[in-house]
């Protein structure tokens, strides 16, 4: 089908666009690694004081840190990616160009973001993970299947992340300046994805809530899949959780998109 080839080409272009900036990538890898070390030593102190915290032993907790660093850009836990670009296009009116193309706006940008995520997993994820594995004693999956399941979970996480950021972007059609919403969404994402602390550490109702919100699909679930903490029906349950949020949020994005493009003015002359 022509559509699939188109969106594959779009995803490839998304990959290549980020691959263009090599120095930025190297700087990003450096930053991820430094952050990884800071978090790792914090976690060591924490888990030495409270062994078994959140159901992780020390090695698992450190693995959680480095998987998190590998996914930080991939699932865009701080926001960003296509988000800033599309908000800017809405603000300047360049979105008019996206709208008159014979393609679906949402699928187009989803394809772009999947391409970007693939690049960030390879370009920004692999090296910090390797360094982390060399510097600390990590719990790496023994079977190839676990690696594969991890990739599935990451892909679903990227789609959930995309769908969330797409909703943020669409708000710019009404607000015209998406910076405020972006910042709030970024903070929520950092906190509720488990990028700072595993969601299993959150107490009581806050933990229940955090584990039920879509951001859990960004780091908590992929990291747990990586650690082999979900098996059998448990695994199906977390995949269903991710896929369910992905579909629901994509559908919400679609509905909002049709209202936005029908009602709202495209800016500028």
């Amino acid at each position, binding site marked *: 089908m*022509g559509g699939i*080839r*188109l969106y594959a*080409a*779009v995803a490839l*272009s998304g990959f*290549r*666009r980020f691959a*263009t*900036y090599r120095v930025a990538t190297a700087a990003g890898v450096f930053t991820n690694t430094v952050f990884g070390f800071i978090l790792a030593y914090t976690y060591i102190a924490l888990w030495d004081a409270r062994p078994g915290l959140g159901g992780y032993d020390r090695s698992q907790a450190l693995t959680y840190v480095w998987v998190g660093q590998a996914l930080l850009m991939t699932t865009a836990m701080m926001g960003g990616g296509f988000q800033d670009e599309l908000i800017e296009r809405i603000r300047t*009116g*360049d979105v*008019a*160009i996206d*709208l*008159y*193309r*014979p*393609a679906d706006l949402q699928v187009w940008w989803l394809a772009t973001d999947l391409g970007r995520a693939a690049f960030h997993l390879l370009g920004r994820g692999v090296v910090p993970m390797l360094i982390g594995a060399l510097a600390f004693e990590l719990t790496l999956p023994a079977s190839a299947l676990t690696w594969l399941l991890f990739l599935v979970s990451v892909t679903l996480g990227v789609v959930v992340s995309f769908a969330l950021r797409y909703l943020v972007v669409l708000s710019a059609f009404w607000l015209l300046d998406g910076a405020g919403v972006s910042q709030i969404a970024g903070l929520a994402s950092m906190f509720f994805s488990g990028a700072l602390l595993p969601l299993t550490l959150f107490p009581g109702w806050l933990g229940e809530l955090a584990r039920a919100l879509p951001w859990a699909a960004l780091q908590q679930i992929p990291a747990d899949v990586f650690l082999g903490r979900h098996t059998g029906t448990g695994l199906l349950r977390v995949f269903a959780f991710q896929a369910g949020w992905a579909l629901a949020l994509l559908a919400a994005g679609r509905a909002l998109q049709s209202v936005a*493009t*029908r009602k709202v*003015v*495209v800016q*500028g*002359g």
Partner: protein
Amino acid sequence: MVGTVDGNGAHIELDAVEKVFDVRRKAGRWRRERHQVRAVDGISFSVPRGEMVGYIGPNGAGKSTTIKMLTGILMPSGGRVRVAGIDPSRDRTKLARRIGVVFGQRTTLWWDLPLKDSYQLVRRLYRIEDGRYAKNLARCVDLLDLGPLLDVPVRQLSLGQRMRGDIAAALLHDPEVLYLDEPTIGLDVVSKAKVREFLRTVNAEQGTTVLLTTHDLTDIEQLCERVMVIDHGRLMYDGGLSGLHAVGESERTLVVDFERELPAVVVAGARCVKVEGPRQWLAFPAAASAAPLVAELAARYPLVDLSVREPAIEDVIARMYSSSPVPAQTAVPAAGRSAR
């Protein structure tokens, strides 16, 4: 009648099209006043297949709003739009495959990618078959001198290069209708000439219907036989370029050199608009003959030399813009044109 359906020929057709925006304005600390802006206020015209038409007007006249309705990005508040028989806002995607759009101030190209990668995406986007793609790309590369630019990332292109790249991107899928929104804005003389030459070739060889919006009237003079002038969302003129002079009550200028400095001369049928030493500028209606004026001047004053200057199209249009702030709909002398 303006905008009459002429059946098989009409390629772009607007019938009493309106676009009204709700605008909120600050009126006091908390209060917001709602009022309506009629960006397009009852426009009707029809462009037959293969015609290249200029669509001009001052900033904020409603040109871009019209183009957005013609691409289906904006839905008209009233009236009827058809492009190649399609209702743009209803079948935006279907129409998109048959039209090309160039916005001079925006780019369809991908900023971080080499030009040729952008074209590959366009190829997938419009599902252009390989043979046709190769042929069209070769033609654009040849006519627009894109050869050395294909491997350059778009962000490194100059404005003129980028514009040529954009025009090529809009034509790879052989669109039947091409909208150009200020395609020569910011370009130097050489780039402008190249772009115009290319557009002329495409229009002549492919029979592409072209709607050209511009502030550079040389574009219009060199490319379009027909021009539509819009202001305050209304069509003020639709017809040949030459007819603009008559409608705009334009004046020609007689430049006279006398033997010596004289006070401003007073003659019937002309008025002195400027005196500079022994040279004077006399304005007279463009439709009138210069002969009686010259005869009278020669009889009464010591003439050395004289020349007649034709009115600049800019002046004609500027006078048109300023003369009628809210023009009556009946002022459109477009009859016969659309029923061609």
